[in-house]
């Protein structure tokens, strides 16, 4: 059985571990959960719930943060 699934991460197709939670996904990307906001299939996932939500094949995940702007 394949141990990865494909999701759309920040608009790009990416293979991630099957059954990974969003928290584990952030860890695999070496991202601090306090420094990003996560949107899963167009729904914002609160920081405390990141460990409860698992990604499924075809999911769309957006990871955003603050950048310079006016």
């Amino acid at each position, binding site marked *: 059985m394949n141990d990865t699934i494909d999701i759309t991460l920040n608009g790009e197709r990416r293979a991630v571990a099957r059954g990974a939670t969003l928290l584990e996904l952030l860890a695999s990307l070496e991202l601090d959960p306090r420094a990003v906001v996560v949107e899963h299939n167009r729904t914002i996932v609160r920081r405390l719930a990141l460990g409860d939500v698992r990604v499924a094949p075809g999911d769309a995940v957006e990871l955003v943060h*603050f950048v310079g702007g006016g």
Partner: protein
Amino acid sequence: MATAVETLRDTPFAIGGRTFHSRLMVGTGKYSDNETMVRAIEASGAEIVTVAVRRVDLDRTKQAGVLYHLDPKRHFLLANTAGCATAQDAVRYARLAREAGFNEFIKLEVIGDQETLLPDVQGLLEATQLLVRDGFKVLAYTNEDLVTALRLEDAGCAAVMPLASPIGSGLGLLNPYSVRTIKRRLKVPVVVDAGVGTASDACITMEQGVDGILMNTALAAAQDPVAMAHAMRLAVEAGRTAYLAGRMPRREVAVPSSPLEGMLD
């Protein structure tokens, strides 16, 4: 230290129930490097600092986020919805920004034309209604149209932000009359956003009686952003103080400053 403005008993600068010590707000975009940005913000004396919401670049260094360089305890982070062209997009960005956990303020932009970056006023009103209902304190970037400004106020904006001239243009205050009229007619704070190019622009804008100015490119694109930030700080204070002082009436003829009596035969 007592300033002239305090002597003139200026009212506190408050938006959405929060009081801020500086009437100058600055953006964080387009600086050549982060150190210059940090020093320019420092020199500007600004408390409110705007930021944008964007995807994390997964292939680049994690230092790309602006919060690695700004202290959210020292600066009030005002997220924007820059780049959004529909009310729905703007609401999505605003909610993501709020989830970052700093505050419920949002600088709302709904852009209707890519060349001029002028706002889509219909989308702006729609987004304002949705965001206000959702508990946001909305600061709406708009054009200098009085009727739109009045409708934004009616929709519950915490502040209305008419432009001086198009974003990033540096053309200065093109329509002082309209901005003055908006300030006179609205009860909520009026903060001029966009278009200021140099210190005199900021001073003239503040002399119209508006509550504050938000600028970004005027600092970031100056030859010396830190020096320009200092100049802008002085200009905003000068313009505000001159407004409070009340300028002399304009006359079409000269009036001598020296006595006419006592002249030699």
